[in-house]
């Protein structure tokens, strides 16, 4: 670049809005960028799970029960093939251990095909389709192996990703709204209201979280359908983050409230709601976003924990917690380690959210020297 670039760059820098600055800093934060992209990809995969997966989450393959992952290959002893293929399998029951064993037959090839027709599904209720991203010419393909009922783990993981991530998003949004309302009231009015709300948040913070949730989920009417349980779960999980967030909101409001511009707004007749929403909140939005991103992993992990102890979602819903519950046994550790593949997705999602949160925090910090 030429010599005059710095001044141009400086100009751009000085005239940039707060958001642009944050965005620029964020772009330079490589781990956070990676985390963000990974999350977007997972969200995309989950959202289009019906299309991305060869089978529905409950489809069973009796010829491949508790079978290991099948990896498409390009060559075998019969030579090379441009199209990836799998070997056909023959399934027999071992007379000694009674286990079903799928023996690959090296002479048969099943080619991987794309945009195949399969089970029909309705995409978000918008349109019907039976196209799937991939499949095999004959038999079935199980990229991540199958569980004890012969269900495809790859497909199940994709559907679980959709469920668990959406619970995370809704849960976080809910806790955000709660925190804004409660923290906003406490911070703006102060006094007795503040004291009361402070005590309340303190109490909610000292009671161990999981027992608290147990109490709440146990109170769900038992004849709720899965959809109702799903919605209620998000609500309960939304309750996880608000005390921390509400404290944050409150302390920010307390410091900002005495600033001149707030006084000016109040003098010109703005209602409290307008003062909070229009003037106070924007002053620390960046912090709140960071807090939200950091809350995500907790919501997701709480979902897995609750589903694990049977107080959360239940079949036929598919979530990370439920998949891990199915993997949680000695048999899987010893004989079917691929049942733990969903755990990798949980780890990746939590890590991605964490580094994304870190990156956003750095980017939003106005005192951080731009390097």
């Amino acid at each position, binding site marked *: 670049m030429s010599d005059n670039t710095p001044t141009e760059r400086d100009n751009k820098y000085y005239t940039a809005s707060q958001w642009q600055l944050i965005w620029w800093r964020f772009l330079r934060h490589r781990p956070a960028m990676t985390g963000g992209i990974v999350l977007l990809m997972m969200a995309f995969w989950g959202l289009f799970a019906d299309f991305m997966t060869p089978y529905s989450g409950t489809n069973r393959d009796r010829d491949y029960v508790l079978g290991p992952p099948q990896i498409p290959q390009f060559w075998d002893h019969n030579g090379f093939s441009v199209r990836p293929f799998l070997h056909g399998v023959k399934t027999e029951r071992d007379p000694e251990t009674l286990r079903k064993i799928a023996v690959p037959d090296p002479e048969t090839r099943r080619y991987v095909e794309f945009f195949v027709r399969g089970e029909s599904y309705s995409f978000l209720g918008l349109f019907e389709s039976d196209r799937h991203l991939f499949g095999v010419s004959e038999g079935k393909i199980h990229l991540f192996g199958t569980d004890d009922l012969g269900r495809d783990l790859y497909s199940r993981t994709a559907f679980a990703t959709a469920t668990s991530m959406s619970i995370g998003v809704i849960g976080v949004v809910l806790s955000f709204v709660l925190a804004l309302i409660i923290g906003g009231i406490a911070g703006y009015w102060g006094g007795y209201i503040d004291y009361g709300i402070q*005590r*309340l948040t*303190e*109490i*909610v*913070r*000292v*009671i*161990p*979280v*999981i*027992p*608290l949730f*147990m*109490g*709440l989920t*146990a*109170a769900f*009417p*038992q004849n709720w359908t899965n959809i109702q349980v799903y919605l209620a779960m998000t609500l309960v999980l939304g309750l996880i983050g608000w005390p921390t967030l509400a404290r944050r909101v409150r302390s920010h409001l307390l410091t900002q409230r005495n600033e001149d511009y707030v006084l000016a707004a109040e003098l010109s007749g703005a209602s409290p709601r307008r003062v909070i929403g229009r003037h106070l909140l924007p002053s620390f939005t960046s912090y709140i976003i960071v807090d939200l991103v950091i809350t995500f*992993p907790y919501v997701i*992990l709480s979902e*897995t*924990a609750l589903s*694990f*102890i049977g107080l959360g979602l239940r079949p036929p819903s598919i979530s990370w*917690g439920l998949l*891990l519950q199915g*993997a*949680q*046994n*000695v048999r899987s*550790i*010893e004989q079917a380690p691929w049942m*733990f593949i969903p*755990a990798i997705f*949980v*780890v*990746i*999602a*939590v*890590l991605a959210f*964490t580094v994304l949160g870190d990156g956003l925090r750095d980017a939003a910090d106005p005192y951080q020297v731009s390097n």
Partner: protein
Amino acid sequence: MISFVLQRLAGLIVTMFFVSVMVFVIMELPPGDYAERYAFRKLAATGTQVTEADIDTLRVRFGLDEPAPVRYVNWISGIVLRGDFGQSFAFETSVNKLIGDRIWLTLALLFATLFLTYLISIPIGIYAAVRRQSVADYSLTIFSYLGLALPNFLLALVLLYLSVKIFDSSIGGLFSPAYIDAPWCLAKLGDLLQHLFVPAIVLAWSATAFQLQTVRATMLDELNKLSVTAARARGLPEWKLILKYPARLAINPVVSSIGFDGNRVFSELPIVAVVLALPEMGELLLKSFIDLDTNVAGALLLLLTLFIVVMNFVSDILLALLDPRIKLEGG
């Protein structure tokens, strides 16, 4: 200082009062009560038909017929005045007896976990800050985050499996069979520590992820301070310098979050305990809650919360002692 402690103590009592109300409400949430369970479990077993009147009789016997506020007052006054947590319906014995030694094992687990957490996170956090952006820094960060990201129930079983396969240790519980009823001695303590290892690691790993990052971040801030530069200029050896100024301050946020760590340990404990079959309070809490054995579940939840509140109290006082900058009348 004394007025500060007294003030905090008063706050503790107020908080505990509200917590007890909250715990009582949580116990009221699930539908049904133990009288129904008992009726069908016990009476029906002998072939007699259960009528609504039988259930009402049982309610009277269990004291479940009173309105909720009366039951709350009975419950809480028993605890406060006589230290009596009432009767367990399911075990047909007093709650105090049932909880008895579980308290100590729970506290042992808690302290083992916290000890492990601080033992790992403080030195490593300081180290990572000093070696900022080195390979060691990054790998330590990623490793600690793994503990946060892996669902702990999963970790528990896998670690248990590995400890059995690799170290051939005996499984589950907190004692080997030989020591369960043995009087306390050094060998028994050693045995306990061996069994505490897996659960403590599981619980400590995720807590470590936090504390490590907190210590690291505070250290980074403190390392840039003028006092450090000045000390360095005076020619103090590097390690002495780090220990003398920034490291001492980096511990403060850790101390302030002792209660928070306790909360997290207790939250994860029931699930880990179920997986590992540990005879501690969280596991019993889960069981009795599902069984509607409300006196037991309520007592456990109350005690666990009390521990956390006390830990908060201790951390406040420690912090005041450690860091003179904190105003004693602070809020």
